[in-house]
């Protein structure tokens, strides 16, 4: 076993190149990381990474990706992580999950047309899944797409969408046969966001700190007779549930992640910086026990993500591991947030320039621990999927298989 990537001299040289390049290109941001001004800097970083093939390193070269090996991708992910960044360094859910889905299900023409702008970081794409009538039950979407000549006419509403800075395209699932059987009546579309009939309206959630880290809102998107070229339907009409299996598999956490355990360190360091009331909290046995608990929570989560990263990249047969990591992340995030509340006291809740030098980091963690229980499938939905994959109460032949995430 080896829990670390092994690096060849060539990869070490690549790391040195990446590190030096990032030093020069990662923007210096002050104040609210999510302000329009700072967002623009991160977008530029995305374009610069994309131009080098480093934004989507393992995506095929002919579609605008980097055509690089998994090991290169690991190096890039680790070097981005040193700057507390992921790739892309902004919200691009439709690019990440839609791009992967198009690679599996798109036609050659669609791959050549739709993927390069995504993989080069030229555009931002949001995924539009949840509807007012279809949350956990995604297959019940009531956003309709009706064929009319060379176009589909789309009507409906999607909620809890995207981030704060707009998108160039929407990657979404629609009902293409009102009379069709469940799971055989939906299709996926890539929709330019500037088409007539699209309205975007802000939704404010618990996670919207008005200032500081984690600021940001969601959106409601209305489609009112929006005409989308038929060539933008991906994966075949009424074949959308099979496309969804790829999209959802990745969304449910089977992609995994390699990252340092940053929240343990951040919490410990914040604790160390707090004013003492008599003996310092770090000298207190109960406090130290809680610190160990936080480490246990965050390390297990890190290891689940690491395992999935390895399984996904080396094309191991996956079963329940994706939704397991997703479920664990949600629940352990909530438990970790409670430990922070106990360890840091009311300082954990602050986003107050006078008494909180972190810029609201823990305030944001505490809020997002709750908000992130639901996106990408609720914690309960993750358990439903795990149960089907494990085959609880089902014969071996009825056991559900993981969705396909590679071509």
């Amino acid at each position, binding site marked *: *076993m*080896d*829990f*670390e*990537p*092994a*690096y060849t001299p060539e990869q*070490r040289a690549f*790391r*040195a190149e990446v*590190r030096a390049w990032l030093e020069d290109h990662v923007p210096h941001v002050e104040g609210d990381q999510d302000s329009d001004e700072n967002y623009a800097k991160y977008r530029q970083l995305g374009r610069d990474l994309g131009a080098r093939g480093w934004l989507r390193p393992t995506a095929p070269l002919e579609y605008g990706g980097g055509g690089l090996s998994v090991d290169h991708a*690991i190096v890039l992910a*680790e070097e981005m992580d040193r700057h507390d960044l992921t790739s892309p360094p902004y919200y691009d859910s439709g690019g990440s999950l839609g791009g992967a889905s198009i690679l599996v299900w798109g036609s050659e023409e669609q791959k050549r047309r739709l993927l390069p702008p995504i993989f080069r970081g030229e555009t931002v794409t949001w995924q539009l899944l949840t509807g007012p009538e279809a949350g956990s039950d995604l297959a019940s979407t009531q956003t309709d797409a009706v064929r009319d000549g060379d176009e589909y006419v789309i009507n409906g509403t999607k909620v809890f969408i995207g981030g704060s800075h707009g998108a160039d395209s929407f990657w979404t699932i629609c009902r293409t046969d009102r009379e069709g059987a469940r799971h055989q009546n939906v299709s996926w579309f890539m929709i330019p966001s500037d088409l007539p009939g699209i309205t975007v309206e802000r939704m404010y959630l618990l996670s919207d700190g008005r200032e500081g880290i984690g600021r940001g809102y969601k959106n409601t998107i209305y489609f009112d007779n929006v005409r989308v070229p038929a060539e933008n339907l991906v994966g075949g009409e009424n074949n959308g549930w099979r496309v969804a299996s790829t999209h959802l598999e990745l969304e449910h956490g089977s992609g995994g992640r390699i990252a*340092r*355990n940053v929240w*343990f*360190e951040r919490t*410990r360091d914040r604790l160390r910086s707090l004013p003492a009331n008599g003996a310092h909290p*770090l000298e207190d*046995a109960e406090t*130290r*026990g809680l*610190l*160990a*608990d936080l*480490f*246990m929570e965050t*390390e*297990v989560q890190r*290891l*689940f993500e*690491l*395992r999935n990263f*390895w*399984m996904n990249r*080396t094309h*191991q047969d996956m079963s*329940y591991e994706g939704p*397991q990591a997703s*479920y*664990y992340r949600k629940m352990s995030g909530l438990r970790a947030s409670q430990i922070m509340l106990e360890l840091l006291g009311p300082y954990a809740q602050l986003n107050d320039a006078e008494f909180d030098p972190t810029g609201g980091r823990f305030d944001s963690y505490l809020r997002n621990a709750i908000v992130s229980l639901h996106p990408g499938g609720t914690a309960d939905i993750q*358990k*439903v999927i*795990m*149960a089907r994959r*494990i*085959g*609880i*109460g*089902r*014969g071996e032949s009825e056991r559900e298989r993981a969705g396909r995430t590679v071509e």
Partner: protein
Amino acid sequence: MDLSLSEEQQLLKQGVEDFIAREAPLEAVIELADSELGYSPEHYARVAELGWLGAAIPEQYGGAGLGLTDAAVLFEAFGYAALPGPFISSGVVSALIVEEAGSEEQRAELLPRIAIGQAIAVLALTEPGYGWGPEGVHMRAASRNGDYVLDGVKLFVHDAIGATHLITPVRTGDDGALSLLVVDASAPGVSVRRLAGFTGSECVVRFENVRVPASAALGEGGAVDEALDRALTKAAPVLSAYQVGGGQAAFEMAVDYSRERRQFGQPIGRFQHVQNHIIQLVNHVDASRWTTYEALWRHDSGKPGFEVASHLAKAVTSEGFVHAVNYSHEVHAGVGVMHEYGLTLFTTLSRSLYHQLGSPRYHRRRLADLLVDHDLGPDPLD
């Protein structure tokens, strides 16, 4: 990065599974639980013969010289079968103590005998004032005419029944320094009794005026505290692997039962409450598995942070095994508590091993001591 078992490890695992199927199926293990010794000396001899007992003992001392990860793969498969016996106590815990604390002569004398099963050495550390750190050792050995004389009680000693040697930490000299005395279990004044209760192999060991030669002390007069601690920190994730195996068995039993057992006209696994039990169960088992194997990998590849990883693994795994078994019981209801069904073998083990080499509370404390200043961010390039 490669989280799969190597080909050799898969063969090792397969070998143990074949051995279990042939010689120690669940029904046989259920019967062993009621035997006086609690395990089968024939199993022990066979395991030694197959070279597994000395898996982690260096070749120069008669072992197979494998890594701790290899040994863990092997003992995980033992745990999956709930196979009882002093395999880990002697072949891993005691062997590591002798290796870490013993003189060259003592290693050459003891380790080959442990590897072939001729000597069964177990650690008699804990006392009525229970604790796994050196601070838990109060028993004194007096010096008399160049010998040590032991009087006292060691309590909750795992696998002492049937052991030939007791590695007994005691306080010696005016300064009360820690010494590790290798006591012949058949020496006059030594008595061993298996404890009654919801316990596994735990025993009480009494020493009444037991004389042992000064040469029985491991090492050459230097401090043995650190050597003992190093040995236990290394042994802990191997024991964790045995717990992982037990948790995996409790998981698979629950899944099978969720498919077979029908109530209200359908398999009980169709009920979401039942599904939830099994999901929590597998999460505990997987958390245990990956913390355990990461610790073993850190050890075998000489990566920094092994101590932290070892304490983490034992804490997570001891808790995880108990939870895993509890959830399996929730799924099984009445059937699960029937002696003849076999789940209770794992239940008893989960309670017993919770404490062996230190409970989660102990390891959390050790972990916290390290974590206050621990640097988690090794730079891959450096």
